[in-house]
């Protein structure tokens, strides 16, 4: 790493701390996928890595290259925005697919569709009841 000799100490420290935070959060999320028991608990764990893990490492890269090339280098923002936008889409699709599969097998660990529908119906009835004079 001979290219970093021109780097001031504060930039090196900021890059180091941000990279370590991001990697540690990603590691905690990965350990979460190992230790949680069911799929619907497990689906929460990787979002640690995709929210602040990605954000922190992208920020470290922005600081590092901006100071190194002494001009603003912000193209890592693209990765951060892209991951932030796409992760909820993927995980909601996946969770709905998993719920559909559990219900289709008649599993008792998820609420059946009729219970959800009745709850929605009751909630709507209460709301209309309150609105009525």
């Amino acid at each position: 790493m001979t290219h970093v000799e021109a780097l001031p100490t504060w930039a090196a420290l900021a890059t180091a701390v941000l990279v370590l935070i991001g990697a540690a959060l990603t590691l905690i999320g990965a350990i979460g996928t190992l230790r949680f028991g069911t799929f619907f608990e497990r689906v929460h764990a990787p979002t640690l890595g995709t929210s602040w893990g990605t954000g922190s490492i992208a920020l470290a890269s922005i600081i590092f290259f901006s100071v190194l090339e002494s001009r603003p280098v912000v193209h890592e923002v693209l990765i951060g925005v892209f991951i932030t936008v796409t992760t909820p889409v993927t995980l909601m699709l996946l969770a709905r697919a998993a719920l559909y599969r559990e219900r289709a097998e008649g599993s008792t660990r998820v609420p059946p569709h009729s219970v959800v529908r009745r709850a929605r119906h009751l909630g709507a009835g209460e709301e209309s009841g309150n609105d009525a004079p």
Partner: protein
Amino acid sequence: MTEAILVWSVGIAQAMLVIAMACNTYRLIRGPRAQDRVLCVDALYVSAMLLVLTFGIRTGSSLYFEGALVIAVIGFVSSVALSKFLMRGEVIE
């Protein structure tokens, strides 16, 4: 001084990311059902993308950024296609 700080921190971060990828791979192989495996593919490509970004910091070359962006895009498309397949049994209807 700055070189030592950066070499050590980026090295430790890369080791942590590799351990995270190993955890995801273990769950990918062992995961009891298909949705667990798809979830771990998703987490695995995010960790790989972060590893490529730290390689970019380590070598000081901004070429690695394009690689990370391509991994992010392709990983998103593949995860959505796999979720769609689990839901409907077909990807494009």
